[in-house]
Every structure is written in C-alpha cells, then in structure tokens.
C-alpha cells in the first residue's frame, strides 16, 4: 500500500484523497478476506491517510496541502457514499478506524475536524452506516475526544442552525447505538459544573423525549456489547445513567443560579422552563434503573456489574454538598423558597440511590453510603434511605447523621416534608410528558408519602 504514495503525490488534493480512499477500500477488503486475526491496518497506510486525507504536514519543508472548503465537501460526500455503499460491516469499521482512530499525533486535530464534519453531515443526510461506525468509535475512544465530537454536533444542530434540531432528533430512529453513545457523551460533557456546561434546552428536550419514548435506549450499548472487561481506559461509560443521575440531582441548583440571569436578561422571552424536563428525565432514569434487574439477570450479571460506580456517586455527593454550601450562602439574601431546590436535589439523590441499590446498579450497602453522604444537609428522604425503614419507625426524631447547618434552620422541612415536594406535584399536569404508571411489580422498600 505504501508504494502508491509516489503516484498520489502529483495529483491534486481531491483526486489524491479520492484515490487513496479507493485503494484503502480494496486494501481493507483484502485484509479482511485474508482472515488474519485481528485485522490490523499497518502503519504505512495510516501515514498515507494522514498525508493525503487529513493533510497533516509530513515534514516541515513541504508546504502543507490544504483543501478548499468545496473540495472538503466533495471529499465528505465521497466518504459518505463510500461508507454507504460498503456492505460489509467489518470493512466499514476497519476503514473508519483507519481514518479516524486517534493516533496521538499531530494529525489528530484535522482528524477530529474532519470527523466532526463527517458525522454532522451524516446526521443531516441520514447516513446510518457512518453513524454506526461513529458509535463504535465513541465506545473505543478516550472520552475527551468523544466529548469533542458531541460538542460539534450540539453546536451544529442546537445552536448554529436554527430549526435543525429535528434533524438531530432523527438519529434516535436512524442509529439507536449512536444515539445512546451521543447521550452518554453529551451528558458527560455538560456536567453542570459551570454556566457554559449547562445543556442547551433543545438538547435537553430531545434527550428527554428520546428516553421517555424508549427507556431501553440508554442501555443499548450495554446490551450490544459483549462484556469482556476490555473497555479502553477512560472511555465513556457504558451507560449514561451515572451522568444522567448527576444531571437530575444537580439541575435544581444549577438552573436556579442560571435562572436569575436569564430572568434578568430577557424576562419577556418565552423560554420554556427546564425544570419539568428534569423531573421527567428523573422519572425516566428511575424507570431505566427498574428495568435493570431483568436485563442483568438475562446476562447473568446481577450483583456482579456496577453500572453506577461508587466513585461517581461519591463525586456527585461531594459536588452536591459544595453546591449546597454555596446555595446556603445565597439563601440568606433570598429567603422565601430558598430551601426548595436543595431539598429537591437531595430528594432526587435519595430516590436515585434507593432505586439504584435496589435494582442492582449500585453495588453497595447503606453503611457504605453513609460516609459518602455524611457531608450533605439533612433530608428526610435521604435519611430514610440511609437508615432503612426500621429506624424510621423506632425513632422518628433521630438527629441528623452528621452536623449540618441546614438542620438548624430547616425544622419545617424535617417535620413536614410534604410541602417541599411541590415541584413534583404538577408533574402529571404536563400534558407533553405523560405520566408513567408505577410499575407494580417492583418491590419498593418504602414509598414516601403514601
């Protein structure tokens, strides 16, 4: 394959790239047919790709060849059809990884740019094979790059081109695998840690609608992947459950901060309220958790695989306690209703923990959780979850597990938890998010409020 370089050199940029793609296709077909395991594209070929497709500067003296935007578009178009026309999945995968596998060299920049454009275009023109390949790529690649790809898509469809959200929405039907990976990447990207990292509303709506429509969507990667334990290091999580739980828990606090500014900036704007969306998302996530026991049992992994890692829970609780501290500082200025969002966050955390433990997604005992949650302020539900139903009946006035400033000035919350749950009550009134019936088959250790 290396010998074609001389013939490629005199060509113009586009035709050289075209020809290389053509040769690459043939080369990989041969590779697959030879039956060598595992099929491996050799380094020389990768170099050719970098030189003629990604246009990484080969050495300093040669002027870097650059494609015009039109040529690039043509190349992308050719790639799209190339992947579309290739019937064999293995070949496609190999080709995709030959083109876009992160090599850790200076070509990676242009590789990512090209990949972003390719995937974005594939979304627009509905090239399913490319999305499938991209899904695999998202599974195997370091999460930093995955997040970048997700960022490109979100930028393109949610912020740059108005009204193109429905196009992105289609990926759910086009490639659920890609959709699942996209959710994972996006929820990893927007971790609500700063103002920039709050998911755009369009994205949030889209994700909520996806999961509501099909809760199993988030498990698709997990279901389709043979669990060999050979997960690449620091790739994305197998499911987006952890980061979605984080979204739901942190959202009341994060959005509360943001909302002030939003209100100050454009009060008349009819921006939809994100809070019902997070409630719906929370419910969906809990439902996904409740699907898990069956799924795990099918795979024979119940109690053996933690889909929700203990570390991420610990990170979440420490984040949460930090946020609550901040909120506590602000609470002095805005007195009324200041206690609602923190309690909501804690409630959601407690619910998620309870359901995750029950469904075998979180493999730990209450005793393990207590130290993790010790920094959190008092919350009746959380205390119930941590202490178990028996203790509740025995001493209703148990002091908080750890000293918390919240305990001091939230006696109402501790005595009358019901009013604090008001954000959840109008849940059913939202017509666009139809209420899901509780699954009666699920054993609930404790049903709050009933």
């Amino acid at each position, binding site marked *: 394959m290396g010998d074609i370089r001389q013939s490629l050199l005199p060509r113009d940029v586009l035709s050289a790239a075209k020809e290389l793609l053509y040769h690459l296709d043939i080369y990989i077909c041969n590779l697959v047919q030879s039956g060598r395991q595992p099929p491996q594209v050799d380094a020389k070929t990768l170099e050719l790709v970098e030189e003629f497709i990604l246009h990484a500067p080969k050495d300093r003296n040669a002027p870097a060849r650059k494609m015009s935007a039109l040529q690039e578009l043509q190349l992308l178009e050719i790639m799209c059809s190339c992947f579309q026309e290739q019937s064999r999945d293995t070949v496609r995968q190999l080709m995709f990884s030959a083109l876009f596998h992160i090599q850790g060299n200076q070509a990676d920049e242009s590789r990512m740019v090209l990949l972003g454009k*390719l995937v974005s275009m594939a979304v*627009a*023109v*509905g090239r399913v094979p490319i999305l499938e390949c991209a899904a695999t790529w998202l599974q195997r690649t370091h999460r930093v790059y995955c997040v970048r790809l997700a960022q490109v898509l979100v930028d*393109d469809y949610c912020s*740059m081109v*108005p009204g193109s959200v429905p*196009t992105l929405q*289609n990926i759910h039907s086009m490639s659920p695998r890609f959709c699942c990976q996209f959710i994972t990447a996006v929820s990893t990207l927007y971790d609500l840690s700063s103002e920039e990292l709050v998911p755009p509303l369009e994205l949030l709506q889209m994700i909520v609608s996806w999961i509501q429509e099909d809760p199993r969507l988030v498990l698709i990667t997990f279901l389709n992947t043979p669990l060999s334990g050979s997960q690449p290091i620091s790739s994305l999580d197998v499911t987006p459950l952890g980061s979605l739980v984080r979204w739901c828990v942190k959202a009341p606090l994060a959005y509360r901060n943001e909302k002030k500014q939003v209100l100050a900036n454009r009060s008349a704007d009819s921006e939809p309220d994100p809070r019902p969306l997070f409630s719906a998302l929370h419910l969906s996530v809990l439902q996904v958790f409740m699907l898990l026991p069956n799924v795990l049992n099918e795979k024979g992994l119940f109690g053996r695989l933690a889909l929700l890692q203990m570390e991420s829970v610990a990170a979440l609780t420490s984040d949460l306690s930090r946020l609550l501290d901040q909120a506590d500082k602000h609470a002095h200025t805005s007195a009324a209703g200041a206690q609602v969002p923190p309690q909501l966050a804690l409630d959601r955390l407690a619910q998620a923990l309870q359901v995750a433990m029950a469904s075998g997604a979180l493999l730990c005992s209450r005793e393990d959780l207590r130290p993790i949650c010790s920094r959190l302020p008092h919350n009746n539900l959380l205390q119930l979850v941590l202490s178990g139903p028996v203790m509740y009946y025995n001493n209703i006035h148990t002091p908080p597990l750890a000293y918390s400033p919240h305990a001091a000035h939230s006696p109402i919350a501790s005595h009358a938890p019901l009013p604090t749950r008001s954000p959840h009550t109008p849940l059913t009134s939202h017509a666009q998010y139809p209420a899901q019936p509780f699954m009666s088959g699920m054993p609930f250790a404790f049903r709050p409020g009933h």
Partner: protein
Amino acid sequence: MSVVFDGSPLKATQSSQSHTAQTQTGLSSQELSQEIKSFISGVDAAQGRKLSVREHARCAVRLLRSVPACREVVLEHLRGVYNEHVSAFLHSLETDGSSSSGGSSNLEDIIQEVHGVLSEFIGLNPRAWAPLVSAWAVDLLGQLSSKHAERRVAPHASSLNELLQLWMSCAATRSLMEAYSQCLAAMLAWCPDACVDALLDTSVKHSPHFDWVVAHIGSAFPGTIISRVLACGLKDYCSHGAKDQGLLGDKGSRVPKIGSVVGILGHLAAHHSESIRKELLRMFQESLTPSATLSSASSSASWESSPQLRRAAVPFLLQLAAMSPNLFGAVSAELVELLRPPVLLQLQALLQGLPREELDNLLGLAVHLISQSPSGGARVLRFLADTATPASVIISGPTPSPHEGVREGCDRLLQTLLLHLHKLVFNRSDGAEVSLLNPSSSQTQRVIPFLEELRSHVGQLCAETLRLERKRHLWLHQLLCLLSVYGGPSVATETLCQLLTQARNPEELALAWQLHTTLSSCMVGLIPAAVAHCVAQIHTHTLGPRQLRQLLLNLAAAIQSRDEEKGGAAGAQSSMAVQVGSAVSGHLHDFCSLLLHGDTAVSHAAVRLLSCSPLPRTSPPAHLLLLSRAAVTHFFLVLRRRGETGNVGRDGGQAAESVSCSVLLLSRLAAYSPLTLKAILQQLVEGALHRGNAHLFGGQIADMSGAPISSPSVSPDLGASLLDINCRFGTTVNFSGSIWSVFHGGVIGKGLKVRTDAQLLDPSVVTQNIQTLLAVIVQCCSSSGLNASRSPSDPDDPLPINAEAAKVVAVTLVENVCPDVANGELSWPPEEHARTTVERDIHIRRCFEAHPVLFPLLQVVAAGRPALCYCSAALRGLLATLLAHWEASREAAATDSPWHLQASCLLVCCMGEGQLLPPVLANVHEAFHLLTPFEVRLLLLAVWEYVRGNAPLPQKFAFSSEKGLFCRDFSRDGDVARYVAPIHSVLHKNIDRLGHLCWRFQL
C-alpha cells in the same frame, strides 16, 4: 435502519417556496444529499441542467439552513457570488448602467436573501455566528476592495470619501458591511477583541484599499473601535514584544499589528481626533493606576486587569507615537499636563519593574519622540527641566519637589536628549556640507522638529538660562548651543543677542561668552552679526528701555573687559572683546541716536558704550557728523541733568558719570578726525550759547527785542498775535546795519522794559558747568590730530591748544556773537568809526553780558594763537561799547560799574594772551580797578589805537617749534612807545596808588 421521514408533502411545496423560512425541516435526508450533490457539481441533479448563479446561490442558502457541516463551503461559495455582483455592478457603472443592470439586480435579490439569512442567524445566536460571519465578511470585504481597486470606476485609494460612497452604493459590499456591523454590535458585549483583531489583520493585508471599511466601522463605533483597536494593538505589542526577545529571527516575518493600528487611528483622526486623544490619554492614565484601586466595574476581558499588559502600555504608547506623528501630536500637548508628581511617582513605580535594556529602549524612544515632536517642545523642555532640577536650594518653580528617583530619571532623560540632539545636529551639519550639490534633498530629512520649534522660543530659553539655577542653566546653555548650531547663523545671532540683552551681571554675561566660544569654532562672524541684529532691534524699537539699557551696558562691559584684562592672559575673552569693539564701532551712528533717548538710563548706557567703544577706521562723514551732533547734544543734556539732580544719590552719581563719559566721548571723537573736531567744537560753542543751554553757564537769556512779556504762560499761544508783533518793536524790521538805529527802552509811562530772566542756577553749579565745558573744549582742542602725536615733555604741563581748533572756536564765537557779517574785517578802523556800528556793538555787548561763558571761551581761543585774530570783530564791538560806557560814565571810580570793569579786564587780558597786544599794553588791565572811568577809557583807547595801528592778522604769527606754539614777534610791528604814553600819564597821575605797577609798563 434508515427512516423515511414523512417529507413527501413538503417536497411539493419546496420548489415553489424556495427561499422562505420554512425550509428548516423541509428537506428529507435524500433530498439533502441531492442538494449537496447539485451544489458540488453545479448541476441540477433532478433535471440535469446547469444551475444559474442565482439557483446555485439559493441552493447554497438552503444548505446553510439545513446542513450545518456545509456552512464553511457555503460561505466560501457566497464569496464568489458577492464577487460576481461587485463585478457586475462596477461593469454597469463603467458602461453607464445601460447594458447589464438586469444581471446585477438579479443578484441583488439573492444577496438580500443571503443577508437576511445571515442576519437572522446572527440575531438568533450571536455567540455562534457573529465571530464566524464577522471574520468572513471582513475578509471578503478586504478581498473585494483590493481586487477591484484597479477598476476604472474605482476612485484612488487615497480619496476615502469617494471610495466609501462607491462601495456603499454596491449592494454586496453594503450588505457585508451591515452584516459586519451587526456582528460587531453583538460581539462588543462579550468578545470585542476578536472582531477588531480580524479587522486589523485584514487591514494589514489589504492596506490602502481596505481603509474605507475601517473608516466606516470606526465612524459607526468610534468609541469602541478606538479603544478596541488600541487594546488589540497593546495585546499584540505585548505578545510580539515577548516574542521578540525570544527569537529575533522571527521578527521580520510577521508584520505587527501596530502598523495598522496606526493606520486606522490615523483615519479616524480626521473626524474623531478628540476621542482618540482622550482614549490614548485614558490608556496612559489607567495603565498607571494601581490595580488595587481599579474599580471592579471594568470587565475581566479588558486589558487593565492584566498587569503584564498594563506594564506594556507605556512602551506601547511610545511606540505608537513614534510611528505616527499625528497621534503623537495629539497626545503630546496634554500628556505633559498630566505628568503631575503623583503620576510621575506611579510611572516610576511602573518602570522600575522593567529590565535594563527595555528601559534603555524606552529612553531612546522617548528621546527620539521628543526630538521629533513638532509642537509643544518648549513645554516638554520646561517640564523636564523643572522636574530634573534638584529642589534642595531655592524653590525653582511652581511645581513642588518631585521624588528623587523621578528627578534622576528626568535628569537622565534630559541628558540623553541633549546627547541625542547633539548627535543629530552635528551629523546633520556634516551631511549638509557633503550634500552641497543637492541641498534640497538632504535638507528636508535633516529637520529636527524639536529644535525647529524651539527656534521661536530662544528668548525664553535665554531668560531661563540666565536665571543661573544650578544644573538647569547648564542644560539650557547646552541646548542653546545646539539650537544655534542647528539653526545656523540666524539663530545663533538671535541667541547671542538675547543673552546680551538679558544678562544683568558679569556672571550672566559670561554665559554669552561661553556660548560664543563654543560656537566660534563652527561659525564665523557671529559677533558682528549679533551686534547688527541688536542694532536692527534698536531700529525697530522692539526693545524696551530696560532691555535697551542692559544691552548697551553689556556691550560696554564686553568692550571694557578688554581693557581690564589687557595685562592678563585672557585670550578668548579679550579677543572677543576686540571683536565686539570692532563690531560696535561699525554701528556707532546707530547707537548715537540712543544718546538722546528719553530714558536717562538708556542714554547713560549709550554714552558709556560709545565712550569706551573704539572708533571705526573709516567712516562716512555723514555718520561722523551725526555722531558728533548727538554727542554734543547729549553733553548739554547731561550737564543739565547733573544740575537738576545734584551730586547726591544714584541719579547724581549716574549723571556725573554720564558727564565724564560724555567728555571722554567728545574728546575721543574730536581727536578722531579734523572733521569731527571742527564739528564738535562748533556745536559745543553754539550749544553753549544756545538759548536753551545758556542758563547752564550762568547766562541770562537776553531778550534782544525787549518787548515786555506779559506772562510766560500766555506767550506761546500768542505767537501769531499782531499786537504782540507790533509790540516787539524792531523785530519786524531789522534795522541793524542800516543808517537808522532804533532803540527801544520800553513803553512810555511803564518805565524801562523788564528784563525777563530765567531762574538762575546755583553759582557753584554754573562754575562747575563752565569748567566742564572748558575742559571739554580744551581737551578737544589740545588732542586734535595735529599735535596728538606729540606728547608733552612734562605730564603736568597741559597740552597746548591747537591753533586750528581754536580758530574753529573763534569763528563760531564770532558767528554767534555778531549779528551780521558787515564790518567783519579783521583790521580795526579808527575809534571814531565805531559810531557807525553802535547797534551791532550793543548787540555784541549784550551777548557778552548774557553769556558769561564767552570770556572763558575767548581765553581758550586766545591760548590757541593766532586764533584770536578771527575774533577781531567781536573784540572790537565789545571794546567799542566799553569805551562808550567809560566815556559816558560819571561814577567816581571804575569799580562802580563792576561788569564793565570785569569785561574790560578780561578783554584786555585775552587780547594780551592772544598776542594781539604787546605785554606792556596787555598789562594795563591790572590797573583798571584803581582808576576812574575816564582813565580806563584812556587806557582802552590806547589799546584800540594799538590794534588799529598793528592789525591783528594771523599771518603775523610764526610757529616756534621749541614752544610748540605760534608766536608773534612784536619787534616787527611799529613802535610801541607811541601807545604807551597815555599809560604813563595815567601812571603819573595816580602814582600814589599805582606805584607798585610801574614795572609792568616798562618797555
């Protein structure tokens, strides 16, 4: 797995409503891929025909709306569309819009469409779109404007307004401009740097043709653009500077943005110079403000928050100023005002942090700027000098003492500035010599604006230099030297002239000589030029009396220094004194008018200068006469002044000194040439007898006409009164010399007419004045050219009176005393003939009465034998009246008519001295006071007889070389005995009283 979206109903509507906003979800993925294919190939995929430009553009817009990944391609493609439109537009302009207006309007709507889409996108999501579109628009604008710059209709790049008009009338460029403005307006809120950065980059790339964009944007957002452009430039300068230090090789490859910053600000300067200046000054001030006091209001993105940028601000501003004279000019004036002590302290604190080389660079830059600054140089200089002057001694100015470090900094800056100027000036003069062949080319580039401007401030500089404040005057003196060398002779003479005018004491005057010493090496004829300049100033009356006086005194001091230092080895100074002397001597006639200056101080100074100045080797007679006239007039003036002030106080001392100077001047002038001698003597005598001066010498203004003057206050107005003229009997018709003699003793019934006599001076003053006058005349007479070479053997012995000089005095006397020339012959008629000249004789006698000074003058004349001969007529007239008086006198003794007695004595004495009489006859006056009037008449008659017999002719005198005098040998004349007889009879008659005198009358 792929899903066919239910797009089929939409597909139908698609083609009809191609550019409405509802395409957002309108296209299925298949259609989109078709769309992409046709966009790439430019061929309609469905119908297989080629797309027109409009359709292609519409296709691009659709892609822009639906395929995010295509936006770059689309924008790239739209470049072509815009370019097409611009071409068509210009073409239609070139063909006067006749041919292809349809084509351009076709594209115009698509451009409107694109513009609509873009502005919709920007409006919806400025954060995402504004950077993208602004970069694209600016780049495209740059490309378009430089690409079409060569078109025939395109105005030249320098005519910015026409350019602006042209491009704004083109839909494509206007739309781009609007899009960019929109982006800018959106981006100013959060990242203004990025878009201004792009603007600057493009401006650098398409320099002259892109200017209209910058100008337009700048005038649309003046405040922000100016401050942003500055901030961008600063940031770039900061990073660039840092890079410079790292690798120097990279320096040339990248054009720093500062160039375009300068260009843009230069543009905006036309209309927004005020805000530019404010912005620059604000930048300066804020860079100095300590960060602690900065208000938190300033956003985190602005440069003020970065200490590194703040530190770079001052060097940046300097650099900016160095690159653009406009900007520098705008700032420099106010900058100096800003540099109050607290600001200076901050500046110092800021600059202390910089490394040594950078400081040196800054210093060099600042020096360069100052030397190149076209205006405000004087203020800068004063500021520097004020700040750099050590404050320990006396308060140097209004500014309080600055911090020591600041002072040292300024000191260093000032010295470097001087050094720099020194280099410039002297290199320049070298260059000027070399380039004599084409002086015009080199002259222009050798201009040093700083010095150029200071040229007009030479006077102030000199004044400040002369204050002799510690180091300050050294600097300023050095600067003056440089300025003089730079400005050439004109400035040098101006400077020297100023110093000469303003110096008030020898120390200050020494500065002028130092300057001259320095300059003399490279300039010749400086002092003559300076003196000439001073003279010109005198003529134009630009100097006030004080300055004038100072100038004259300084010149005098300069000349006198030669005399003082003659003994010592004061080479430079004495040679300079000689030069000053010779220069002044060339302009004596210019200075002489100052002798009569209304201000006594000035005239005093003038006489001092003139008295010590050497006389020119040659001089036109007109000048000499002028000079001598002025000198004589001045002499009488100072005499009068001395009389008025007395000898007390400063004025008195000054008057006395003036008199002595005046005497010296007159005597030196008289000795200069026969012409001057004659003129001076003549004028002295005339002056002494002049009505106005007569009282100085005890004279009473004899009103010859004798009309009663009713009151002095009225008389001047009545000059034209017929009555008055009629009253002045005898003045309307002059009867003298005719056969009638009319006497007018008064109006009948009113007694004798009153003698109007002025107030009499103190006799001692009169004596002193007469002494002075005689001293002058004697000095003049004795030092005249004829016997100047002969020094007297005995220093105590006065020099003999020169005969020629005495003759001049004599002739003048006669002219003044005798009313007409009739009977003016030297030889005497018989005594009886005197009755024909009674009226004249009376006039002569009255003259002698009125002017006591006449007798001493006669004595002087007498001493200069044979000059007295020429006075013959006056003597005769006086003697005749005396004879008549004594004849008519009925007094018992001659002493009863004291004036006549004295006059008779003096007359005879003079005639004896003048050797008109032999000694025997000359001695008769010794007996007069012991005699009766008749006897006196007898003796005088004997005198008359002698003179009649031995005519007083000059040719009877012979020069005796051993005496150095003319002498008359009486032995050649007739026998004296004949005339001695009446003497002897009188002796006999009064032998009891005259016995002791007998020996005087022995033959």
